[in-house]
């Protein structure tokens, strides 16, 4: 029985290894064919190239002494086609070269890009300039290969998966650290201790404080607490880190206490106190005249289920009385309500996970394979 069971129940362990290998070889061949044989190919990302040019100009003020007008000292960078240059209210500053730059805007689809390129090739100069973006295309390849690397864990743990996972975790951690440094430590700590330096080298728009001395003094408090917090890495004096931790926990508890009591205890208790029998709004005279027909049946059922559910679940968590007799039955009913709740939560979790898979497959099909 054991042998038969193994043969029928584990078809993919060893004897079907060749099937998996064949599937992979076929997939790679299909990808290569898709990349080389199709006109649109794979992972082709196009950008619209928009060129900008600005010239430096001075405003010209009419003057009785000079018929050509007098130039003001203030200059501005304007488009060479600016109407004010043509009508003489602005004049180019001599000896200053114009500045030029390009902006690359993503084109939504390969089809749209090919159409635009064809229009321009046919002589339609009103069509925007569209070109293949090597960097964006490489980005799609990198994202696709890393996605496949994560998926490869479904077959078995392997180095390809480990590299992809490490890259994801490493880049996420690095992003968080850099982001935290530039959005918190630089403006909130260095910006208070040395605002002029931060303004000169890091954040030109750092707001000017009305009390710079007081701000600098207060900034020493988190600075010292921060040093105390990382003291736990030192071989001795780990107790020093306990004090800033106590401060953090105390502050968080203080912040959460009031809001939790207001929003999660009082407001939730009020929301639970619903009328047992729900009456429909008397929108018509017929309904208003008949008390029986004014009862909203399903809303009433909902209220009753809510009341029974809350009481039975609370009974289940009430351990001061032994769960026997009526209390035991109520507690048992509470377990059923809990199970239905957990089942519902599990269903929602499944829905979320399927959506994530669908999103990644959409990316592979649309952006990488370009087949959808």
């Amino acid at each position, binding site marked *: 029985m054991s042998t038969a*069971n193994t043969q029928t129940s584990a078809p993919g362990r060893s004897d*079907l290894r060749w099937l998996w290998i064949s599937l992979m070889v076929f997939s790679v061949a299909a990808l290569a064919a898709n990349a080389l044989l199709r006109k649109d190919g794979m992972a082709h990302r196009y950008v619209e190239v928009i060129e900008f040019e600005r010239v430096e100009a001075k405003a010209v003020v009419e003057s009785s002494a000079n018929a050509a007008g007098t130039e003001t000292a203030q200059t501005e960078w304007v488009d060479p086609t600016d109407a004010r240059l043509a009508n003489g209210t602005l004049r180019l500053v001599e000896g200053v070269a114009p500045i030029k730059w390009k902006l690359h805007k993503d084109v939504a689809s390969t089809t749209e890009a090919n159409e635009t390129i064809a229009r321009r090739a046919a002589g339609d100069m009103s069509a925007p300039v569209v070109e293949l973006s090597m960097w964006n295309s490489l980005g799609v390849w990198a994202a696709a290969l890393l996605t496949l690397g994560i998926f490869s864990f479904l077959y078995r743990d392997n180095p390809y998966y480990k590299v992809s996972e490490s890259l994801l975790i490493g880049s996420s951690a690095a992003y968080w650290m850099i982001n935290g440094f530039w959005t918190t430590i630089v403006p909130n700590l260095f910006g208070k201790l040395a605002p002029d330096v931060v303004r000169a080298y890091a954040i030109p728009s750092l707001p000017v404080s009305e009390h710079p001395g007081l701000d600098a003094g207060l900034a020493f408090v988190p600075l010292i607490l921060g040093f105390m917090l990382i003291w736990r890495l030192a071989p001795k004096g780990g107790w020093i880190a306990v004090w800033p931790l106590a401060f953090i926990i105390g502050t968080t508890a203080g912040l959460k206490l009031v809001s939790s009591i207001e*929003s999660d205890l009082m407001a939730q208790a009020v929301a639970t106190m619903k009328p047992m029998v729900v009456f429909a709004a008397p929108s018509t005279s017929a309904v208003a005249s008949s008390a029986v027909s004014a009862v909203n049946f399903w809303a009433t059922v909902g209220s009753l289920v809510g009341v029974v559910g809350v009481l039975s679940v609370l009974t289940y968590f009430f351990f001061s009385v032994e769960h026997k007799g009526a209390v035991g039955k109520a507690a048992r009913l509470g377990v059923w309500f809990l199970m239905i709740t957990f089942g519902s939560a599990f269903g929602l979790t*499944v829905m979320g996970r399927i959506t994530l898979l669908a999103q990644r*497959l959409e990316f592979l*099909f649309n952006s990488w394979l370009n087949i959808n």
Partner: protein
Amino acid sequence: MTTTSQTNMNKQSPGRLREFLAGIGNVDRRWIFLSMALAVGVPILLKLRFPEVPGPMAKATFDAVESIPEGSRVLLSFDYDPASAGELQPMASALVYHCASRHHRIVFMALWPLGKQMADKTIKDVLLEFHPEYKYGVDYVQLGYKAGNEGVIKLMTTNIPGQYPTDADGAALSKMPIVADAADLRAFKFIGSLSAGYPGAKEWVQYAKGNTPDAFKVVGGSTGVQVSQLLPYYPKQMEGLLVAIKGAAEYEMLVTSKYPAAQHADRLEEGRRRMGPQLVAHLLMIGLIVLGNVAMIAGRGMKGGAR
């Protein structure tokens, strides 16, 4: 002889069937992964779609945006990152499109570090694509990410200029008409949080709505994993709630029915597009659960089977 053989077969066949059913429970899990990939992938390739019937929570969200006066100042907090974009980006796109279609002035912010990038993408792909007339600083502004979790919300209830002296690019907010006179959160008629966890919609209810219950409407868009924590707040403390991709699809349906998009309509159909794979994948899941239970029952008492 024949009679004996048939009798033996009759005796053996229930055993073989039971063995086969019990064997299903030991099937290589990679077959299940492959069938799930097909269940999700094939409907995507076939562009399988089903009509959506909007539920009460999606309708309530739609009504919350509709009920505030046209041109109101609204705050949209992007409290998620790319890991949850599959569920929340469709909601974000539809919500921004809806607000812009009502000509609301939109203030974008983020409590998650990568939320700012999510908001930037939505501004570029949806807001400016469908409403190019929107002017920065007048009709919309990007406050960006601010560290501090619920502490940010707490401070915004009393002092927005103190918390946000500049926008995400460092420009002074005091010179931008959209927020120049916004002293605290009561300056907004509507707050929407697209939330993937902590901090998110729960904190907006606790610290913003809890502080000033009648000043503004709060609406949440949540991932499927997190929504169980938010359901108790609806409808008393949260006027609307979009539940996972289903909520996004229903809301998209409501928004595009009233405000149809002239072009690039596919950007407002992400939720509905992902509901086709949902149906097939759920059918597969149900089938697998049934098969798993059958295998367990069949394997009871067998060597290596369930007890």
